[in-house]
């Protein structure tokens, strides 16, 4: 349904735009109907930037975004309005998502003015009640209140209800859990699961591995704007291939293991993997020379692509930052 291919985002920085900052490099991924895809990465990995580009809040520098086979990388005002009927987003901070001087109803009213100007008040109210029921909110408790009178979880569910008013097909959920406390998190997470059951595709942006594991069908691991690993959730979490994914998983505290045990295991793994790169090993194993690399991984050169290590499990070059050299040797330079 949603396909990103070779998506780039470059910011010009420096005094006269003299240097470039690659926030997103050659990112390719797809989201199907009825599927949750998690975009996992640390701060500054470009995950929110990707979400914003999908939502057309930021322009992309290169690559394409297609939705249902239609290129939506560059859209005019009218086309964007139509696009937003199908694709909606929910953001990280529910308190900043509402204009603090107005009641929460106004968010819905804005949507109505924009998309349903001819719907009668009674049928709109019915539609609104349905959407609120879908996110298990009681209209009487919510409507007519100011944002600061509601909890973060309630606000976040209100925003999801707002998106549901539009019969959307794709929801970009940008860190929607991270500002909520533990007791309300699970409500929102389960709500996402239910929406998935209704056939919605969800792009779930998060830095929290356990959330990604809990909710998603497939995961995409980002590091410094580049996809380092991508695949089915079970495959990536059970058998992480890229050193960064392994570091990430090892940094999650366990209830049944002490740090010493984890560190010993990590040291062992680091020794075993030293000087290797599965990406380049796989390309060589396919009988291709390193010059053919681009064709082997779908046209993305410079070791920014992914190779299919196991069915449905892709991994990128083992170097960490795109500017570094591959640990397997100086065979490929960026």
């Amino acid at each position, binding site marked *: 349904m949603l396909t990103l291919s070779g998506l780039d985002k470059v910011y010009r920085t420096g005094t006269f735009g003299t240097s470039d900052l690659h926030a997103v490099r050659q990112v390719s991924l797809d989201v199907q109907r009825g599927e949750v895809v998690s975009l996992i990465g640390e701060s500054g990995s470009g995950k929110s930037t990707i979400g914003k580009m999908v939502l057309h809040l930021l322009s992309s520098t290169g690559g394409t975004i297609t939705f249902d086979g239609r290129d939506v990388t560059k859209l005019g005002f009218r086309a*964007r309005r139509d696009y*937003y009927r199908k694709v909606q987003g929910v953001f990280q901070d529910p308190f900043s998502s509402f204009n603090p001087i107005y009641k929460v109803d106004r968010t819905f009213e*804005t949507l109505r003015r924009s998309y349903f100007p001819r719907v009668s008040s009674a049928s709109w109210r019915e539609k609104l009640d349905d959407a609120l029921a879908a996110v298990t909110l009681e209209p009487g408790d919510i409507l007519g209140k100011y944002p600061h009178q509601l909890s973060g979880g309630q606000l976040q569910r209100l925003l999801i209800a707002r998106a549901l008013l539009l019969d959307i097909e794709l929801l970009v959920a940008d860190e929607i859990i991270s500002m909520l406390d533990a007791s309300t998190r699970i409500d929102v997470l389960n709500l996402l699961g239910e929406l998935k059951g209704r056939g919605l595709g969800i792009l779930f942006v998060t830095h929290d591995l356990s959330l990604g594991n809990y909710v998603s069908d497939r995961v995409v691991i980002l590091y410094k704007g580049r996809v380092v690993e991508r695949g089915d959730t079970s495959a990536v979490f059970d058998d992480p291939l890229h050193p960064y994914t392994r570091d990430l998983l090892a940094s999650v505290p366990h209830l049944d293991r002490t740090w010493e045990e984890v560190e010993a295991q990590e040291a062992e793994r680091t020794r075993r993997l030293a000087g290797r790169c599965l990406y380049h090993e796989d390309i060589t194993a396919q009988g291709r020379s390193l010059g053919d690399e681009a064709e082997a991984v779908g046209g993305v050169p410079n070791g920014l692509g992914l190779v299919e290590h196991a069915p449905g499990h892709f991994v990128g070059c083992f170097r960490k930052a795109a500017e570094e050299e591959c640990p397997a040797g100086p065979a490929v330079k960026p």
Partner: protein
Amino acid sequence: MTATQPTAGPGTEASEQPGVAGATSGIGMTGGRKPGGDARETLYFALRNPKVIIGMVVVLGFLLLGLIGPAFLKYAPMDYAGPPMAPPSADFPFGTTTFGQDVFAQFVAGLRSTFLVGLLGGGVAAVIGMTIGFVAGYRGGLIDELLNMLTNVVLVIPGFVVLIIINAYLGVRSVPMQALYIGIFSWPWVARAVRSQTLSLRSRDFIDLARLSGVGVGTILRREVAPNMYSYLFMTFVLLFGGSILTAASLDFIGLGPTNAMSLGLMMNQAVQWSALHLGLWWWFIPPGLGITLIVGSLYIMNVGLDEVFNPKLREM
């Protein structure tokens, strides 16, 4: 008035949520506390702030005098009505000029043009400054650079000197035209201030959400950005109002005022021209000078008071 005041003041609420108030005070008062409570609370504090009350009483008093005063006058401002150089008396409360014109009649007529200049000049400057500030802050990029350049250019132009040249050269000497020129040269600081506040509001998620609702730029600025800074915009207008009056008075005083109307600055100009100072005709130049000082001073005091009303951190309680 008292009927609109809540009996138990909302002061307790403000102190209950210092975090909310403090976090948002940078863009005026953005935290509505309870349904319908925001406007009422603002009014509550406004009516209890001595600075606002004093300023408002003085400004509204002069405005009222200018509006209804002419109805009670026996003479037109330029009529040779009485004995020349007469000191204040029952017939001529502010005395007469060298030519026997009624100074009070001139003063009342001058008040009218003074308020007209303030309203028009302040209005023009507010519209230009806010439009440029909003668009530059919201759109960013090249548009921002260009508008910023324009703002900076107008900012460094010595406005008063240009006004002198325009007034002397074009010779358009009516009060509205004077107000228009003043407005055209006094907006840059408004544009800069509005731009910076728009910049900070633009990064809030609710702006993105409005964009996701398929709403255009104009609607977002009007319905989402501007309401968050209404209090600031109001104070900006008060300052522009006072500034325009002062500039107009200065222009009038150096002889570049309207030729077909009376204004407070013009009165002082004529008083000096006909040596009122040397002849000791204090009733000719003191009323207009004091009038301008009181109006502009009261506006500035009101502005300080309003700042305290809108920004809970500055409230003295």
